[in-house]
């Protein structure tokens, strides 16, 4: 039985294992499809829409769509890249992302996308929200003005009993990812550092050790996001 299938991304032939999503198959073949909410080890949800592609001329999310034989996928096109840029711009204007003073700068995926898609000035007006900071945990600070609600922390930061440290609160425009007050006070160093690492932006900050990595050694100082996949 043959476990592989073939399809095309931007006319390039892709060989995928059966059951792989388009994002996974693309990665294995050295093709980069940008993702933001998608996170290794977590079931994909397709909520941020950064991985928007066209499959047989229909918009789909590459992180949730299984690869299928004969697919014609459009990925690195001007139209799709502008959609992705607009998503990044929307995330910038709906939060307060001041890179110059943010310690995630250089390691931030949102900032890295801003550079990759050459965002200069967002096409949308800034909201300048005032959502506050939860600094009550002895280990982390949760800056709500920087949260892009990707759910990575909700899905990956759990205690040994599987209890979530983070959860959604409220609905609609009031929606927020909040830290469980009780669990937050008992957070271990390891989990706090992991939470900061898994957060794609500077919304979760490990306390009291800021700007430890010198400029020039940060994740995206030398090469743009996605270059680790692109051939």
């Amino acid at each position, binding site marked *: 039985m043959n476990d592989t299938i073939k399809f095309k991304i931007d006319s390039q032939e892709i060989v995928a294992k059966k059951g792989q999503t388009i994002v996974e198959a693309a990665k294995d073949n050295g093709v980069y499809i940008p993702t933001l909410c998608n996170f290794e080890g977590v079931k994909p949800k397709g909520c941020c829409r950064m991985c928007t592609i066209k499959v047989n001329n229909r918009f789909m999310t590459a992180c949730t769509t299984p690869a299928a034989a004969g697919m014609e996928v459009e990925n690195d096109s001007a139209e799709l890249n502008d959609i992705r840029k607009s998503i990044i711009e929307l995330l910038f204007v709906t939060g307060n992302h001041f890179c110059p*003073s943010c310690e995630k700068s250089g390691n931030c995926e949102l900032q890295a996308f801003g550079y990759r898609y050459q965002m200069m000035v967002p096409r949308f007006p800034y909201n300048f929200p005032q959502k506050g900071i939860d*600094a009550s945990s002895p280990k982390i*600070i949760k800056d709500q003005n920087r949260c892009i609600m990707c759910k990575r922390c909700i899905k990956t930061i759990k205690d040994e009993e599987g209890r979530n440290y983070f959860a959604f609160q409220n609905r609609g425009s009031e929606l927020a990812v909040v830290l469980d007050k009780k669990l937050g006070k008992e957070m271990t160093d390891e989990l706090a550092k992991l939470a900061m690492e898994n957060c794609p932006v500077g919304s979760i900050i490990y*306390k009291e050790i800021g700007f430890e*990595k010198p400029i020039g050694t940060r994740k995206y100082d030398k090469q743009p996001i996605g270059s680790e996949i692109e051939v």
Partner: protein
Amino acid sequence: MSKKITIEPVTRVEGHGKVTIKLNDAGEVTDSRLHIVEFRGFERFVQGRPYWEAPVLVQRLCGICPVSHHLAAAKALDVIVGAGTGDGLTAVGDKMRRLMHYGQFFQSHVLHFFHLSSPDFLFGFDGDPVTRNIIGVIQENRDLAIQGVMMRKYGQEVIKHTAGKKVHGTGAIPGGINKNLSIAERDILLNGADPLNADKMVEWSIGALEFFKGYHKANVKTVDGFANFPSNHLSLVREDGAFDIYNGVLRAVDTNGNRILNDVDCQDYDKYIEEEVRNWSYMKFPYLKSLGKEKGWYRVGPLARLNVCDFIPTPLAQKEFEEFKAYTHGKPNGMSLHYHWARLIEVLHSAEMIRDLLNDPDLQNDDLVVKGEKLYKGVGVIEAPRGTLFHHYEINKDDQITLANLIVSTTNNNQPMNTAVNLTAKSFMNGQKEITEGMMNAVEVAIRAYDPCLSCATHAMGQMPLEMTLINEKDEIIDRKNK
């Protein structure tokens, strides 16, 4: 008819300033003011932020001297993280920060003198404004201009290798630094191809001093007589009285050299210094509490530092310092244009210090950070290129900043700059039938001697043309001149 003259904005000055000069019916200057007309608000919006963000956030006050704010904030936070009040860091932490600071002193002073002030000396205060700028300097004195540009570049390279980048780096963190200096980086700075190496910078610094001293000799009356007035002087000094721009105690002397603030702990600065608010400027007026508002104001910056310290701990700068002190027979020097003389002695000292530090193997150590018992208040005082800089932070139990008080160098020099403007306006404009561009520039020369950088207290945006408006007693505009 009495007039009010407005110079707005002041040019070749980083930041937005405005000068108003009132003339009476006889054409005599009756009053003058340097207004700072922009508001920045860093002290307010840093509140609520995690304390370790402050050194990176607050340095955005300025693009010329961000290192000063970066280090002053880091020093204040050293106290908060229990790393002591200046002498508690590891050798590499202390020396890397000093190297960063001397690199900045070097580039900032060079920018101040060569790029912003030298046109006034080369072309005269009333020279043609078309050429009275750095481009004119390049055309008139190519070697001098190239030296200025390359010296500034060298200082910026020192900053890059210590802070991570040339402007707005992240090198200093609470309790220490985030990088040491690699052997490769050291060799670039120490032995780089001419002219970008430490020895050449020392040589060119001596040359810059000779240039100024030559100008001084040929123009003694102008240099000595321009905005010459007595004042108190305040500065940081090392505990043994040595010139030190990074760490020490606060000392102030009066116009005769008597101590009026005797080597006090920087953590207690608010016991000795208070700020007055006046309704016509966003910049406050600091003064020594013990002497009161009228008599307690003081100068800061290069002139004040050399008036306050006992000696400079590098040989070539010390020799120049002795000549400088001998000129006023050991008494405090009150001549505003001597700021440039003092500034260039500091350039030489910075070059010597950079060279000495680069030869220090401690810079390659790996013990970068020190922490101890946490405190909730910290004060960091540093000598920025324009003068003494105070950063004071308080935090809550959740590590958020609850209070920030910054007294920047420009603010400390507020009253002296106003006094210099007043004296210059009187000297150049009293009884004159027409106010010329050269007269207006003379007022700016006075400001530039102290500070080409109002952005710490204000807001800087692009080029600033000069506008002068003549206003009568009824505040009616009767004439307007633009540069």
